[in-house]
């Protein structure tokens, strides 16, 4: 597939000068060094292919929005270049620079004109925009009376009125209600199938997994990781935990079946083994049957004295959707005063009520209900197993309900 967007060594520096006279002098050939510089982006390079959906993730201030603005063209890079083959449409922040005195319709003409559409084109697109925004009579009222969700609807409807070659979406969808979010994602997905490349900034890691083929993690203005969604998202989660706890390491490896194992933590307590056994025979299980009684056994030992220990589990399917998760804090089974060298064994008997497919358990050893306080050890996808439906009736979906049809016929 062809490359639509080529970002090459892009850097953006916000310079502050002691006085603006120095800045003005620089426009006319002087080279006065600024008093302080802030590099929002530093040497970022990547390419986006046609039809590829890319998510930019990272903490606040990582440079995501600046990068989007540079790609859109509203902010110019200090160095480097952005080459686009085709038309870009972007929804940055709220609204599209709407004039609050104008009606929705007038604003569509105004903002649409700024986007390079002719008035005739906009008149032609107008019914579709009005239809998609679904804001009813507000469409002909001034935008100052709009709620933020309505502004987002109008902006999204306009920005996606005509399929662009690159669509850039910056978090704006988070203000819409779930109905509109759903509708917007459907349109984004449809565009993607028709060959539009998508660049999305989001903090919802669920969206990332659901929509994107590729994720770039930005940190302090540079590309920290660029790869498949599960790999980067798990790394990002581990990195957030790391921020809270400086003495932490992150290791990642991918097993033969494609599951990515991410291990991170400060390792005061470490996981020795995690096994899935048949509850009756205690034989190890790689492939479980629907309805089988299973036992998940985890053995850990502590290297240091720690005040509190909580074990959490998360069960996810292949696409990263969480099937189930809880921890011993929620079940009120927190262990207190663990001494160095102690061995702790956790047994979790359960019935396999999952549908056929591949699943993974991610265990985490922490000191409270979140992993942010003390993350001793966290392994994404530590134990992978398959579920097959051999003796039951056929069903689809990822959970097995012990349900039976009761049919009665009368007459």
């Amino acid at each position: 597939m062809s490359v639509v967007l080529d970002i090459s060594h892009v850097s953006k520096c916000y310079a502050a000068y002691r006085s603006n006279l120095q800045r003005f002098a620089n426009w006319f050939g002087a080279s006065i060094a600024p008093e302080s510089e802030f590099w929002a982006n530093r040497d970022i390079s990547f390419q986006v292919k046609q039809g590829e959906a890319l998510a930019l993730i990272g903490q606040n201030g990582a440079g995501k929005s600046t990068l989007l603005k540079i790609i859109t063209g509203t902010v110019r890079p200090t160095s480097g270049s952005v080459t686009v083959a085709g038309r870009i449409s972007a929804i940055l922040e709220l609204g599209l620079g709407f004039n609050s005195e104008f009606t929705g319709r007038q604003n569509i003409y105004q903002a649409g004109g700024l986007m390079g559409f002719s008035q005739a084109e906009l008149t032609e697109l107008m019914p579709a925009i009005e239809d998609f925004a679904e804001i009813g009579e507000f469409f002909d009222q001034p935008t100052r009376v709009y709620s933020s969700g309505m502004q987002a609807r109008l902006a999204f409807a306009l920005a996606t009125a005509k399929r662009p070659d690159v669509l850039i979406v910056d978090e704006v969808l988070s203000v819409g209600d779930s109905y509109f979010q759903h509708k917007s994602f459907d349109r984004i997905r449809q565009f993607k199938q028709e060959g539009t490349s998508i660049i999305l900034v989001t903090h919802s890691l669920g969206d990332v997994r659901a929509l994107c083929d590729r994720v770039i993690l930005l940190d302090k203005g540079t590309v920290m990781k660029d790869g498949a969604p599960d790999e980067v998202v798990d790394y990002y989660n581990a990195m957030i935990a790391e921020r809270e706890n400086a003495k932490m390491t992150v290791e990642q490896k991918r097993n033969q079946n494609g599951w990515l194992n991410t291990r991170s933590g400060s390792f005061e307590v470490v996981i020795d083994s995690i096994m899935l056994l048949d509850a009756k025979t205690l034989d190890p299980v790689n492939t479980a049957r629907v309805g089988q009684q299973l036992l998940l056994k985890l053995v850990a030992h502590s290297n240091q004295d720690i005040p509190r220990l909580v074990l959490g589990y998360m069960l996810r399917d292949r696409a990263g959707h969480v099937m189930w998760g809880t921890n011993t804090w929620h079940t009120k089974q927190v262990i207190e005063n663990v001494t160095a060298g102690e061995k702790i064994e956790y047994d979790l008997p359960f019935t396999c009520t999952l549908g056929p497919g591949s699943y993974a358990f991610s265990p985490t050893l922490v000191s409270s209900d979140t992993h942010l306080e003390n993350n001793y050890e966290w392994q994404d996808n530590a134990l992978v197993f398959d579920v097959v439906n051999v003796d039951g009736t056929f069903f689809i979906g990822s959970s097995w309900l012990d349900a039976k049809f009761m049919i009665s016929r009368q007459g």
Partner: protein
Amino acid sequence: MLKSVWHYRHFILASIRGDLRGRFARSRLGAFWFILHPLAQALIFSIVLAEVMHARMPNIDSRAAYPIYLLSGMAAWGLFSEIMNRSIGIFIEQGSAMKKISFPKLCLPLIIWGSALINHVLLLAAIAVIFLFFGHYPGLAWLYLIPGMLLISVMAFGIGVFLGVLNVFVRDVAQFMTVFMQLWFWFTPIVYVKSVVPEKFRPLIELNPMTPLVNLYQDALLLNQAPSWPSLWPAVVIGGVAVVLSFVVFRRASPELVDAL
């Protein structure tokens, strides 16, 4: 830069229409205000100053001379100050659009230019009607207003865009200019005639590039006379320099422009 502006020409035209409409949204008299404003101002001045100035009007002996003189000067000044004041503030005013949509920013002052020119022509039409009430019939000399408009708007556009770019970085520029424009107004013979100015201030008035341009309007509208072409040279030079300077500054500043908004 100019090529991309050309690509946006339809947008510029549509925006000029929208601008005229938008400026008077939510007001009852709507579009009448842009004519009523300068007329009311001229009326105030002529009520206050008519008796004082009447005697001093040169070459003409009519009660209507002073109001006509005043309206001509005010029309010229109005065009100048509208383009100037709005260009200074335009980049800040449209900051939110500039941050969200990528488009040639030069469109913005061009829209102002176009909208101000249309306003101005409408105002001149209204003035022509008022002149008829005074029994003063417009002559062919009105055609001299065309180069006048051009020179005034070029100068205002050049200075306005130049200061508008600076204003994004140093917001004091706009504040300073509101004061300065008042001073400039009073140093231009609009309300008074040149002959009443004390000798020591004369050079200042002569150096003022707006003086010959306002004169052009007054000569054409009141006296049906052609302007003295050589007197326009300073305005041509200043206008040309201002436009070139504003383009250079705009080009140099535009990478940083959005950053400072």
